[in-house]
């Protein structure tokens, strides 16, 4: 500054007394030098100042760049709107997520992203909050440019100027579609879980009922076994009397025929009692005798026991017995149980009549028994479950659901195979039992 003053003075002096100065070359020279120096100096200062300004603006620019890069590269969606909500800026993340470019949304309101899935009052709440200067946080279910729906978590806040007036709004949003989906899945699962628990509780209750029924049946079975046992005695007497009568018969031959018929009936009664006792004994396996079982005899017994039920329902019974069937080593009653359970199943399927056919045939070192009914069949979705304990398609008290599972267990124990085929016209069970314990593949029955 003082240098400028000196220069100024010198210049003025020169101007006022140009003659004086030009007469004194020394003064003139000094003045020139001084002027030059000052000019140079001023120029230098000026240049420095410019440099500073440029530097300062560069610094500002860099700071700006720093913030700009942060916003541009942020993975969060950043949107800036004016006080009315018109979009002034969106960062690249916005375009990436929504599919809209900056140009496409500039000047528009954010409602272009509305999917219609969110209730209107969410938006009303939002405006109320931010207009009064508060921050608002919430979730939007929005729509991308390609129509795809997505979820975002948004923080929307007002931006104020130095006087505190709201001049813009800033929205920072996260795409939470994944998280939302997981949440919804979790909710579904938890609902499912509740349902499953309810179902299981029902199942358990039904299992309790079935167990009770099974116990009741078991008690009944024991009682029936006791009765059957006692029947053996008078039956025994009866047989001997008939035999004695046959021996002493002196009347017409027709009479003797009647006696033979009577004897047959006694034998039949014996078979029925045998079968009942055999079943009742299934539990006490260690005590029950192991015998060589004649499959045809077993089937006969079972059909005899069921004949009344079949007649009542109008079911006609057909039996086709194979010849030379090998005997199957088994505990007394086990195989009876298998046949009875499957036959009962078949009979149950034919409430309004039909045809029950049982075939026995030699197959692969064993015997194959086919039991066919003309009921309405087993539904495909039930097929996987029919051998499960307590599974029954007969609601209410009619069926413990244990029959087939017991049959399956017994067949398994004897290393046999059991299979089912079913259509809407009927069902066929095929049971194969080995006659010497060696397992072989079973085929389904033809015809």
């Amino acid at each position, binding site marked *: 500054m003082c240098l400028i003053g000196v220069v100024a003075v010198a210049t003025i002096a020169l101007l006022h007394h140009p003659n004086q100065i030009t007469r004194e070359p020394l003064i003139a020279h000094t003045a020139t030098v001084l002027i030059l120096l000052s000019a140079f100096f001023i120029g230098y200062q000026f240049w420095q100042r410019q440099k500073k300004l440029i530097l300062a603006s560069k610094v500002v620019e860099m700071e700006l760049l720093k913030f700009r890069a942060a916003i541009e590269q942020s993975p969060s969606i950043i949107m800036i709107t004016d006080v009315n909500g018109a979009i002034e800026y969106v960062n690249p993340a916005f375009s990436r997520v929504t599919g809209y470019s900056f140009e496409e949304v500039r000047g528009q309101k954010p409602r272009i992203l509305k999917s219609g899935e969110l209730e209107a009052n969410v938006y009303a709440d939002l405006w109320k909050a931010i207009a009064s200067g508060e921050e608002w946080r919430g979730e939007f279910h929005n729509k991308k440019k390609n129509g795809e729906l997505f979820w975002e978590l948004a923080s929307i806040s007002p931006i104020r100027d130095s006087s505190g007036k709201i001049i813009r709004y800033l929205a920072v949003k996260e795409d939470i579609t994944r998280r939302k989906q997981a949440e919804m899945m979790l909710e579904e699962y938890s609902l499912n879980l509740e349902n499953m628990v309810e179902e299981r509780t029902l199942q358990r209750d039904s299992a309790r009922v079935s167990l009770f029924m099974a116990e009741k049946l078991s008690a009944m079975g024991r009682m029936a076994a006791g009765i059957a046992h006692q029947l*053996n005695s*008078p039956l*025994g*007497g009866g047989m*001997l009397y008939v*035999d004695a009568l046959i*021996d002493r018969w002196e009347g017409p031959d027709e009479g003797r025929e009647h006696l033979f018929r009577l*004897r047959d009936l006694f034998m039949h009664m014996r078979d029925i009692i045998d079968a009942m006792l055999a079943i009742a004994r299934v539990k006490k396996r260690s005590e029950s005798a192991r*015998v060589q079982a004649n499959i045809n005899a077993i089937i006969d017994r079972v059909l005899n026991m069921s004949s009344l039920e079949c007649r009542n329902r109008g079911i006609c019974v057909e039996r086709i017995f194979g010849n030379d069937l090998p005997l199957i080593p088994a505990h007394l009653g086990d195989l*009876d149980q298998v046949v009875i359970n499957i036959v009962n199943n078949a009979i149950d399927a034919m409430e309004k009549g039909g045809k029950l056919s049982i075939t026995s045939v030699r197959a692969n070192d064993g015997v194959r028994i086919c039991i066919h009914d003309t009921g309405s069949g087993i539904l495909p979705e039930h097929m996987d479950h029919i051998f499960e304990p307590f599974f029954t398609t007969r609601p209410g008290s009619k069926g413990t659901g244990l029959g087939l599972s017991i049959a399956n267990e017994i067949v398994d124990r004897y290393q046999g195979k059991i299979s089912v085929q079913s259509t809407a016209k009927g069902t066929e069970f095929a049971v194969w039992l080995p006659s010497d314990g060696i397992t072989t593949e079973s085929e389904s029955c033809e015809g």
Partner: protein
Amino acid sequence: MTHDKRKVLVVDDEPSVCEGIELVLTPAGYEVKKALTGEDAVALVEQEDFDVILMDLIMPGMDGTEACEKIKAMKPTIRVVAISGSPSGQRLDRFLRAGGIELYLYKPFGKQELLDGVEKAMRGEYIRFRNDA
């Protein structure tokens, strides 16, 4: 045995069984005595000699196995045959150990089965009769 007729004792709580057996065995040359209880049977054996005893296993009061024990204690050479409607394996086992022979007649049996069984018992054969399943 010291008598010429072969003596059989039938023990069963069902009268028709006893009578029926008598009807079959008497014409076949046997002398038949009947008892309706185990106690009666033991009492009879005390007083008389028998070749074969047909013993029902399940009776009220003293059952067949117990009666068999007592009888075998008294007269060890008597053959005791079990007659019963399908007894359990356990029961037969106990009967065997009480001294019964391994020949069972499962009720209801016919005339021929009975005769064969008694013959075999007389001959001292210990064949096990089984039901075909």
